[in-house]
């Protein structure tokens, strides 16, 4: 089981978390939505997997490239 680190593509803040730990995510599923540049930018589980851990909470600021969730594939 490979561990997959999910990183943000943008700097912004966590607006809404859509998945919970233990949840099985289909490829392309949204894990959370960030607010950045006045846009709602989703963080996606590109290959799918099981969400092991969320590393951020709603309202928290995130930097580009920050690991915000860990999945197992």
């Amino acid at each position, binding site marked *: 089981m490979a561990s997959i680190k999910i990183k943000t*593509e*943008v*700097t912004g803040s966590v607006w809404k978390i859509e998945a919970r730990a233990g949840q099985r995510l289909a490829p392309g599923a949204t894990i959370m939505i960030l607010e*950045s*540049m*006045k*846009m*709602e*930018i*989703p963080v*996606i589980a*590109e290959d799918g997997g099981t969400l092991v851990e969320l590393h951020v909470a709603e309202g928290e600021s995130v930097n*580009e490239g920050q690991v915000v969730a860990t999945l197992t594939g």
Partner: protein
Amino acid sequence: MNRQQRLEAEFAAQETKARAMGGAEKLARRKAAGMLNARERLQRLCDPGSFIESGLFATSTSNPADRDSTPCDGKVVGFGRVNGREAAVLANDFTVLGASSGATNGRKIAHMKRVATQRGLPMVFLGESSGARMPDHMGSRGMGMLLGNDGTQYQRMRETPWASATLGLSYGSSSWYAVLSEFNVMRKGAVLAVSSPLLASLAIKQDVDPQEMGGWRVHAEVTGFADLIVDTDEEAIDALKVFLSYLPSHHREAPPVAAVPAGSGEGMRDILGLMPESRTQVYDVRKLVRTIVDRDSFFELKARFGKVGVTGLARLGGRTVGIVANNPLSRGGAMDADACEKLTSFIVLCDSFNIPLVLLVDTPGFVIGTEAERQRAPGKIMNMMNALALTTVPKLSVILRKSYGQAYLNMGGGRNSDEVAAWPTAEVSFMDPTFAVKVVHGIDPGLPGFDKEFAEMDRASSVWDFASVYAAQAVIRPQETRDYLIRMLDVHRLRLSDGVGRHLMRAWPTSF
């Protein structure tokens, strides 16, 4: 035995030896690992019975002892028909000295490339090689005899399309040809690198993990050297065939025309539903692309690299087009340095092989800030701009939603396209109205007066003002987009030169 029989027997014996590759044991190990051998790969690639080999009886000659153990000198080359069209093909045979580069196989590759270039044939590389052959290349005599005697070995002028598959451990020449090619498909488990992990470990005194160094994830997501990732040899070879089906055999002809599949354009009536109503919400532009182009014809390239820019080949009304789109799903559509480089190389590919470009625009501009500058954003933005300006194939742009600032020009705004069309949802300005209110009036969102100034800025970005000054040649209903593009591709067909452009970027670097 008469003379005829003696010759037949000798021929058969030589042929059996030449076709033996690295021997039954090595071939069995590959099979067990789920990998095709060089000849099986060629069989998958070429139309049945169409492969005619060049240099079947060539062997290594550097060391007389190798002569019997180096069939084809580790590289099987020849001509085969791929989907009915002639191509020059090269399959590395890793079971023979790791398909390492030697004097004889170097001459075989040179011959294939020369014929491909001079006669207008696509060149296909099935890559899996260990690099320069040792000890043949060692010492000053080895270097002097083996390397650099063909001044055109790594020259690329894009006379004919090159397509490569990275199917195993690829060091040295297999890597060079992969990055010199227009298209490189990579099989999971393969490695593409300058040199082997062993040599890298010796040189930098630390353990090197081959997948970390040159595995599929690195090349799909970090370097962009893999255009497509697949799981098996079979899928990789099929992808080469699909890629070549969009391209002409050489740069002096137009791409082939295909039949239009039934059901094409079926989803156009509901296409607006694929874009959210709110301007702050994102969507996946690839769903719109798939709806607009001929059914199942979208062949995306570099899907995991520079994701904010989407590139792919497709057909509209049976004719090959290159799709360049912003994808709001990633970074809200704000283009970064990676996306610029990806789009630039794709523009060069299309222009070099007479493929019209369709640009689908929804970008709030370029990513700005410290990190963007460190990634050399100005240079990348201008390289892309220059490539677009040097393009001589038809360019059609459709503004779907946002088109702001310099990115407006990079995505074909103004006379950077042959035709600019806009959806009624389009908004065009120098910057997003939210930021413009702050810059011009000093008012942050939520403060008194913001809403009034925002409404004014927003109205001034409307498509109707844009159309009134003829900056858009057409405002089109979203559901008309496919028909509009097909018609405009016909209007702008390069009639005066039989569909052939001027190829001003034929010597543009092949990677970035």
